[in-house]
């Protein structure tokens, strides 16, 4: 009996240890950003100082520099603008496509759906070279419009796929009833299906927005002036002057732009996984 409880406790401690170690690994960089945000530069750059405590009084100076002396706010605004535009384009194109793939097309639709999804896997690093030329020829170099144009290339495939799964789960009876009441097929889609698909649409909105926030390669390639940058490129390239790193402001900028959106995303994560796992789970 005693051995049994001992073993159980052992398992529990082991379990706690495993989960704890992994959590430490994944979350520590963010904790470290938060700690560094409020440290004085003189405290940070003194070798021998215990980095885990505040050797000098905490300060808001890094945040002041970030918000007043850099383009950080501008970058956040740029990111939000691009995000909203990309979300709108994605919704307009992906909602009808997802519905059509779920309902209106038979076998070839299924093949096409997989084909569309596969384009999500074509990486920016394969396309950025010709894209940079095309963007230049269109006169969009250094403009946020270049990002608005290109980002749907990865939001549309994944969102069409997600919405297709979502629409498939809606019972057909609902549309059929509406069609018997005199609505056309398209009318039933607009007036019946879309209103009850708010959850799916919201998932797509959050997902597209986070993808825009995360994108780095295209933004780095197309945008070269500081004022036009998005936050994911501005922070790593412009808060570093030559060899001088403004660690406090860097960490503050990274933390503020990543953790809030991460918390939001967390609520939707199961739906994305359902999209990622395709047919591998029954």
């Amino acid at each position: 009996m005693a051995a049994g409880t001992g073993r159980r406790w052992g398992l529990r401690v082991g379990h706690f240890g495993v989960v704890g170690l992994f959590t430490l690994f994944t979350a520590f960089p963010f904790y470290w950003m938060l700690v560094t945000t409020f440290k004085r530069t003189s405290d940070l750059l003194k070798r021998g100082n215990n980095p885990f405590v505040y050797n000098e009084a905490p300060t808001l100076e890094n945040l002041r520099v970030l918000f007043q002396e850099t383009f950080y706010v501008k970058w956040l605004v740029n990111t939000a603008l691009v995000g909203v535009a990309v979300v709108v384009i994605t919704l307009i194109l992906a909602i009808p496509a997802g519905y059509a793939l779920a309902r209106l097309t038979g076998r070839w639709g299924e093949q096409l759906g997989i084909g569309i999804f596969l384009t999500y896997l074509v990486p920016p690093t394969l396309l950025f070279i010709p894209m940079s030329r095309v963007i230049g020829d269109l006169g969009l170099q250094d403009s946020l419009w270049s990002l608005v144009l290109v980002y749907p290339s990865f939001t549309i495939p994944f969102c069409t796929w997600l919405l297709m799964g979502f629409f498939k789960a809606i019972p057909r009876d609902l549309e059929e009833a509406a069609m018997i009441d005199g609505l056309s097929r398209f009318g039933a889609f607009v007036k019946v299906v879309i209103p009850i698909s708010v959850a799916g649409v919201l998932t797509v909105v959050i997902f597209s927005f986070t993808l825009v926030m995360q994108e780095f390669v295209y933004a780095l390639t197309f945008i070269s002036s500081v004022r036009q940058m998005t936050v994911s490129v501005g922070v790593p390239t412009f808060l570093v002057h030559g060899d001088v790193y403004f660690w406090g402001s860097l960490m503050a900028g990274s933390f503020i732009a990543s953790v809030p959106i991460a918390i939001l995303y967390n609520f939707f994560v199961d739906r994305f996984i359902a999209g990622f796992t395709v047919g591998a789970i029954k």
Partner: protein
Amino acid sequence: MATLERDLRAPAAGRRFGFVLDRPEWLGPLMIAPAVLYIVAIVGLPFLLALYYSVSDISMGRRTLGFVGLKNFISVIPTSKFQTSLQNTFVFAIVSQVLVIILANILALALLKEFRGKWVVRLLLLLPWVAPISLGTIGWLWILDSIYSVINWTLEAFGLITADGWPMYLGKPYLAMGSVITVHVWRLLPLATVIILAGLTSIPKDIHDAAQVDGASFWRHHFQITVPLIRPILLVALLFGLVFAFTDMVVIFVLTRGGPYDTTQVLASLAFFTGIQGGDLAEGAAIAIFLFPLLLAVAFVFLRIARRSEVT
């Protein structure tokens, strides 16, 4: 009454284009077309251009686009820079994926159990995947700093290294590769974990019960029952991981810029430095094209999985 009225009006409108809104064989293609056209225009065309650029003499600021055959490949393949990058790409992708799959399996098994505060733990575990990767990597840049690394401070405090023996994580060849791989594992672990966890939770409970009744040991249970059942989903996790690892340049760009001495240079970052920063679009395209066969292989396996799941 209202329905009757609408029924009467419907055919009138239907004469022009109303029938399009009602017939699946018209409406379907019509609703898909905009999305497909957009994708063809901004993924398909640039992709064809990428193929053509690799056999052309295009460069930034010049308007020429002449065909030069395999010249770019012939000039780029023998360079040690390219060969190092090719080798690094494989080391980087394969080592990080092996680690991700092993660690994600352990973590997913641990998360299968219910415990208090699980949602907070899940949020913390997901952070690296959800946060913009370039910003998360900045955190690591500071953690791995050559002079102020918190890891080194801790190691010294425990007496494991001396003050003048601090490793330079990003400045020494093998250490730099190790660091880049670690950060990449950190970034991809959450995705692989939740995918595998989704697979584990989809296994019906009575299968586990039956195994327990039969007295299967933990290891036997795991490797002979659980793993075969989740094999398709393990494959999915591996495929996504491989694509992300083979084609990613963000972690490397932020941490090392391919250095020291190109020891962490991979094809994607080399294509960027050659094509965009160096302005030699043609040679950059030739380097990036090497990513393509790999994607083809991944797409092939993916299609097979999708097809198999349709049959069963």
